[in-house]
């Protein structure tokens, strides 16, 4: 968890800065650019009140869009709802302009395009492109309806190029900055993971070395006794000693988990102690286990120690990633039920005695 936070924060901070910049750009354009044009051409409109109403609709769309993007990446439905309101306002304002001078007095085209840039900024580029095309087609449609002349078409293309290129440039720029932020965040993440792996490898190496040294004292003499014939493989005691040493050898050879300070390691430590007094212990994990808080881990290792102490010759401990957390189970020949810690710290413990074997499961729920 701690590994992800700084990188996520960094990338998030960049993205927020870009978003705020675009909000100011779009709001500024609508107030000064579009608003200025609207006031300047006041006498030319057949209904100034209608144009003002459309300008206010557009302003509301921009305000709603700004709230949406500042709250986080909006889903396609709210994003497109805002974009379509802006598109409708732009087309309506153009349709209500005097036929011959529509392009000259049009304040809405730019604002509609910028609104699209605002709400579709972090979505697929194709969505923004099709939106800008739809806005342009709306204007062209109005022009065709008014009767299109060659000079009008030239004007249309000029305005199209001028407004759309600026909008596309902003979108592409923000996208490039986004990608750079993601890249640097992932580089930091990779570096941190590598550092963690290194630290883990060192911890595991030290633990393995210690176990290897311990085996020198326990497994080697047993093998020597077997070879010399002083230990009889038919003897039950010798067989238990063999089983224990085999379990320890197996763990030494097969240990592969890479999470330092995890519950698995703490359980291994408890198992080591049990093995020293002759218990054969298996520990297995299934699935990617989430990190568990310290108090919950302590409760589970307490249960482990209680069960391992009561077990006579064998115990199996498993850790399984389940839907809501982790299930840690113990199967051991305790002969009786064992006093286990009461449920707390988000950990629930159940047990069931079946003949000689005890099954107990501690479930920790994540949240």
């Amino acid at each position, binding site marked *: 968890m701690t590994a992800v936070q700084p990188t996520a924060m960094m990338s998030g901070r960049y993205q927020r800065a870009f978003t705020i910049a675009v909000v100011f750009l779009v709001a500024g354009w609508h107030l000064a650019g579009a608003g200025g044009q609207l006031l300047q051409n006041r006498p030319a409109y057949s209904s100034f009140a209608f144009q003002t109403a459309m300008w206010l609709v557009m302003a509301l769309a921009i305000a709603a869009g700004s709230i949406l993007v500042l709250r986080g990446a909006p889903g396609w439905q709210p994003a497109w709802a805002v974009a379509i309101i802006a598109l409708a306002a732009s087309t309506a304002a153009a349709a209500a302009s005097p036929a011959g001078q529509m392009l000259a007095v049009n304040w809405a085209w730019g604002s509609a395009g910028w609104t699209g840039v605002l709400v579709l900024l972090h979505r697929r580029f194709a969505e923004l492109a099709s939106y800008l095309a739809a806005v342009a087609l709306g204007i062209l449609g109005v022009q065709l309806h008014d009767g299109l002349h060659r000079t009008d078409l030239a004007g249309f293309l000029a305005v199209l190029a001028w407004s759309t290129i600026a909008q596309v440039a902003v979108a592409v720029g923000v996208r490039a900055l986004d990608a750079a932020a993601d890249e640097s965040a992932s580089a930091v993440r990779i570096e941190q993971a590598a550092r963690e792996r290194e630290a883990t490898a060192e911890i595991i190496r030290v633990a393995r070395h210690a176990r290897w040294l311990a085996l020198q004292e326990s497994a080697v003499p047993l093998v020597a006794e077997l070879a010399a014939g002083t230990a009889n493989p038919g003897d039950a005691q010798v067989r238990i000693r063999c089983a224990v040493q085999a379990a320890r050898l197996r763990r030494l050879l097969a240990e592969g988990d890479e999470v330092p300070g995890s519950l698995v390691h703490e359980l291994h430590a408890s198992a080591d102690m049990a093995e020293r007094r002759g218990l054969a212990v298996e520990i297995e994990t299934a699935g990617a286990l989430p990190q568990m808080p310290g108090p919950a881990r302590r409760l589970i290792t307490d249960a482990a120690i209680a069960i391992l102490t009561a077990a006579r010759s064998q115990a199996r401990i498993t850790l*399984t990633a389940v839907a809501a957390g982790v299930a840690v189970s113990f199967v051991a020949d305790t002969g009786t039920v064992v006093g286990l810690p009461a449920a707390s710290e988000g950990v629930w413990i159940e047990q*069931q005695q*079946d003949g000689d*074997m005890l*099954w107990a*499961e501690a479930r920790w729920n994540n949240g």
Partner: protein
Amino acid sequence: MEQRVTVAIIEDHPVVTEGVASWIRSDPGQRVRLVQTARDLTGLSAGARPSADVVILDLELSGELVTTQIPVLVAGGYRVVAFSGHSDPAIVMETLDNGAHAYVSKEEGRDHLVEAVLAAAADRPYVTRSQARAMLADQRPSRPTLSEQERQALLLWFQGMSKASVGRRMSISENTVRQYISRARAKYAATGRTAPSKDALLARAIEDGVIKPGEIMPYTSFARAGAGSSGLGALDP
């Protein structure tokens, strides 16, 4: 008189081959007959007819993983029981996906290998604890959907309970426990790449009543729902 199951061992460590052979010999019913041992796969893929019913295959021969060779063996008519020290769930899943009947880890060999060979010879599922572990850990998008009961039976079996204890814990019979675990395994045979061995496992599971044909392909439910809504049944009050 029932025919004994014939088996070949492919294993590059003679001491392991010797150990497996001794487990086969010490089977009280003498149900399995060892007919061939080899240190690599060259001897097996050449023959026109399979030389054994089941191959016990060590997944690592001379330092190389041979999971990709399983489809060749399966195409040659062999049933494969993988026997390996690699208990990494990803390798177990790849082994099953490539058409092996069962996976037995080296720790489980003494208790499970002969039984797994017998089950494989009959095209019946055999799920070891290490195999249950891989199924529980499976997060691939292509994994089959297991029912809550199937998942719980697999979990308790992986945790180390006997199947009888699993049954008592779940308040069902031991037989039903076997049924749940076998059904989960059969669902795996229905996913991933195709292999004659997987088809045989599935056919046998359907024949044994472990799984119904309708439970195998959850993704056909869309087509079935379409067919149902156009039928008269859907219009009945």
